[in-house]
Every structure is written in structure tokens, then in C-alpha cells.
């Protein structure tokens, strides 16, 4: 089972990485942004499996982006691996600080509390003129272990980097979802009382899911900042977090690839509807989400389960 997963991951990596050769620049950028956001959404899906939805994942998306930018601008560090690691570390620590608090809440209270935290960051960053205020900050192009590509090679390297990170994160999360801890998360979503009376800590399960979501959010934010070359407080704004929830609902909690596919669909729908219906693209997006919720209440991922069920 695990070897099938590894083979699937390698196939996905090779197939997606081939995009660096065949995709035009604009598509490579679009896919890189979609995958970066997909990482954030994967964290939300991890929490959804436990029965809670974070409406404030912009907190970690923004925190990761600002950490990378501030480290790059103030310490002259441009290596993408180091920047990603440092951002993930900061988000891990913040996640550990807030996780135990949030793990006491469920439903709308969890959603609103997570949203409140991200809006506190948004408000704070907007007022801090020494780090750009509402205008934000620029970040220079990253280097890759000393290699400093420019133009298309830079786009391609960044694209391959995000593809690799996404495949690794997706594989690790699949292993986690299928693990004993992953099953406990599903059991918690269903019946917390039973889980507690079997001897497991529901709070501990929820905290881990939140912390994993924080780290993934930070990595996604770092990659997005490096792809855009800019970061601003909008990264933590509620509409950004809402977009992540949109993708997570579209994907459902059953399949990991569905999360990235949904993130790509969102970016494509947004880009094309923005181009052809600049004033009504949100309407197109809303209709699309409604159609998915009605036709596939468990998200796009349920298609994979149906397909596997039919195959069996």
C-alpha cells in the first residue's frame, strides 16, 4: 500500500515537473501559485477531517510570507530552502502557541477564533509602516543552493520547487491520513466522547492537526511571496482565508490530489472569468461552487472514492 503511494507520488512528480518544459510562463506562474495555495488548503483539509474548519489560515500564509521577506531583506538570505525552513519553523512555533487554545473550540467558534487571529495580524501589519504598512514589501528572486537563475529558468526552478514540495507534503499527509492518528482524527469528527473514553486526548489530536496546518500554511505563503516577489497584509485578510476554505470545500476531505486539483481549478476559473467577465467573475465562481456542493457534497475527492468503489 505504502509502495503504491510512493510510486504514485513519483509519477505525479515527474508528470507535473514536465510542465516546466511544456507550459508557457503565465501557466507556470498560475500553477505555482495554485500549488502554493493548495498547500495551505491541505492544512485546512487536515482539520476538516477532525470536524473543524479554519477560516483564518491566512494567518500562517501571511506569517510565512512575511518571515521569508523580512529574513531575505534584513539578513541577505536568498536561498529558497532556508527561507522555506525558517518560515515553516516560525509558523510551527506560532501554531504550537495557538493550537492548544483553539483545540478547545468546535464549529463556528473555532472558525471565528481562527479568523479573529488572522485579522489581528492583518490589522497589525497594516499599521506597521516600518515594514511597509498596507503597501507591503518586495522580496528579491530566490536562489537555489547558490544557483541564481533569471527569466524563464527562474520561473521553471520555482515551479519545480513548488511541485516537489507539494508532492512531498501531499505524500506525507496521505501517510498521516491513513495512519492510526489519521483514523483517530476521523473518529474524533464522528464521536469525541467515544475517543476520550477509549483513552485518547481529543485536544491533542486537534492540536496536531492545527499545527500541521500552520506549517503547511507557512510554506505555502513563502512560495507565494517568492513567486509574486511581493507580500502585503492582504495575505492575512479574511477574503484570502475564505478562498482557502472555498478550495477545501471544493476538494472535500477524502483525497489529497483533489486539494491541488481544486486549487488549480480555482486559479483557472478566476483567471479566465476575470479575463472574459471582469465584473462578474465572483458570480461564476459562486455558481461553480454551488454546482459542486449540490452534485458532490463530499467534494471532488469523493469522485476518487466512487471510482475505487466501482473498481472493487
Amino acid at each position, binding site marked *: 500500500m505504502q509502495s503504491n503511494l510512493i510510486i504514485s507520488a513519483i509519477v505525479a512528480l515527474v508528470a507535473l515537473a514536465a510542465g516546466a518544459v511544456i507550459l508557457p510562463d503565465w501557466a507556470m506562474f498560475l500553477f505555482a501559485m495554485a500549488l502554493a495555495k493548495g498547500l495551505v488548503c491541505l492544512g485546512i483539509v487536515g482539520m476538516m477531517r477532525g470536524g473543524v474548519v479554519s477560516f483564518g489560515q491566512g494567518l500562517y500564509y501571511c506569517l510565512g510570507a512575511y518571515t521569508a521577506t523580512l529574513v531575505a531583506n534584513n539578513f541577505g538570505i536568498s536561498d529558497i530552502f532556508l527561507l522555506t525552513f525558517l518560515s515553516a519553523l516560525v509558523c510551527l512555533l506560532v501554531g504550537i502557541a495557538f493550537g492548544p487554545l483553539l483545540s478547545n473550540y468546535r464549529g463556528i467558534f473555532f472558525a471565528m477564533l481562527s479568523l479573529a487571529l488572522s485579522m489581528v495580524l492583518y490589522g497589525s501589519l497594516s499599521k506597521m509602516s516600518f515594514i511597509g504598512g498596507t503597501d507591503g514589501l518586495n522580496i528579491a528572486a530566490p536562489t537555489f543552493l547558490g544557483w541564481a537563475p533569471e527569466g524563464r529558468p527562474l520561473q521553471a526552478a520555482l515551479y519545480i520547487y513548488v511541485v516537489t514540495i507539494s508532492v512531498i507534503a501531499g505524500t506525507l499527509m496521505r501517510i498521516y491520513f*491513513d495512519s492510526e492518528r489519521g483514523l483517530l482524527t476521523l*473518529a474524533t469528527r*464522528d464521536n469525541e*466522547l*467515544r475517543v*476520550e473514553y*477509549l483513552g*485518547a*486526548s481529543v485536544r491533542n489530536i486537534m492540536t496536531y492537526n492545527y499545527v500541521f496546518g500552520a506549517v503547511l500554511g507557512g510554506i505555502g505563503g513563502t512560495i507565494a511571496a517568492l513567486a509574486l516577489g511581493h507580500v502585503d497584509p492582504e495575505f492575512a485578510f479574511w477574503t484570502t482565508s475564505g478562498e482557502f476554505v472555498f478550495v477545501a470545500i471544493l476538494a472535500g476531505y477524502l483525497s489529497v490530489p483533489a486539494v491541488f486539483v481544486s486549487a488549480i481549478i480555482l486559479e483557472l476559473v478566476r483567471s479566465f472569468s476575470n479575463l472574459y467577465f471582469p465584473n462578474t467573475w465572483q458570480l461564476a465562481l459562486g455558481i461553480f461552487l454551488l454546482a459542486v456542493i449540490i452534485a458532490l457534497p463530499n467534494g471532488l475527492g469523493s469522485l476518487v472514492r466512487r471510482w475505487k468503489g466501482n473498481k472493487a
Partner: protein
Amino acid sequence: MSTGVLEVRDVQKSFGAVTAAKDISVTVPEGAVYSLIGTNGAGKTTFVNMVTGYIKPDSGQINFRDRNIIGMAPRQITRMGIHRSFQIAQLCNELTVEENMLVADAIHGATGPSFLRNAHDKDARARAIATLERFNIAEHRDRLIPELSGGVKKLLDIAMAMAGDTQIMLLDEPTSGVAADEKFPIMDLVMDALRSAGVTVIFVEHDMDIVTRYSERVLAFYDGRIIADDAPDEVLSDSEVQRYVTGAPA
């Protein structure tokens, strides 16, 4: 100096003006089978909830192997060996019977639940199926919980509670919601499994035939107090028990 695996001493519990437990004292010896009887609101479930950590008593002591367990969380008490089943079976409805059992198995595994070990690992599934077979419900392993009968749900609830190192099992109305003709077969299965594992059993029950047949000692509750604590025949022939609990003529 303790003589029982579970000792409850002078326990009191009130919910506002309602007193749910008054001076409850009982010593349960290792391997014994106790039943708790009483009308609704007499304090039976409050007793179970206090022993399993769901409710904290206002005063008194509850000792498990000479260790006071008051104030501990339910999961800590479970980890010590005091397990319970519920009046309404507490199961995970979106999971199959086998997956429910795998949840219990994962929690009580030797190293605790793992982030890497697959929950549907061959060994774990074999253990889960062996337990389901012991409770005669293995044939339902691929079914979801809402598709099961009340009896199968009860058995699964108890089978899950049996996972790990169970030393005391509290069964809250194990035959409620079970068809009349299923009650004795279910109790036979459950009691055989518990006795063969040497588990001390305390069960809440309204059916006096079950109380007489399976318990060694009966605690009769009335108005938050224990009004009788003796062998089943003695308790059921007690005039106070007949007046306040069983309703039989004195």
C-alpha cells in the same frame, strides 16, 4: 488498608438543589460482578459517571488500587484500566464496524497511536477481526453503524471498551434497546468474554432476570443513596427495595 480493586468512600454529588449521590460507599473486590439497580434518577449512572471521570464528586474518595482517581480526566482513568460502555452505544457512525474496532486498537496499541503506521495494517486488522469474532459480530465488519441492529451496536460498544488492559468494566444498561430475545445471548457473550479476561464488572440494569442471573452482588439505589448492598436474592427480597425499586409487593 484496601481490600477491593475499587473503593468508593462517602461520595457526595449535587446538581443545584438535586442530590444525585449521598454518602455513597462501596468496596468492589477484584473479579467480582456487581449490578446497580434503581429507578430512573436514583443515582446509578451518576455513580458510573463519577467512577469514570465524567463527573467530579463534590466530596469523598474514589480509589482504584489504592490510588485516588477523583479529578482525573476520563482518558486517564481509561488508561489506568477502568473502561466503560454506554446506555446509548457510542460509536463512530461514518466508519465501518472494523474501523471502529481499529480506532480502539490504535489507542491501546503497545506504543500508542502512530503518525506513520497504517491504521489498516495487516496485524491491526487481524486483532480487530479476532475481537469482533469473540463478540460474534465479525460478519458485520464492513457495514456502517447506522445499518446495524441495537444488539450489534451494543456488542461493538462493549468490544471497543474491552480493548487494552481492562481491569474494571462499567456497563451502563448493556441490554437497553436490545430485542427481548437477544438479551440473554448478548449478556452470555459479554460476560463470558469479561470473566475469561478476569475483569471486574459493574453493570447498570433494569431487567431483574439479568441482574439475578449474572451478578454476584447488587447495589440498590434510591434517591442518590444505596439502600441495599448484598447478594441478588437478599436485595430483591428486601422490603425497601421492593417498595422503591422493583415495585414488587413487600
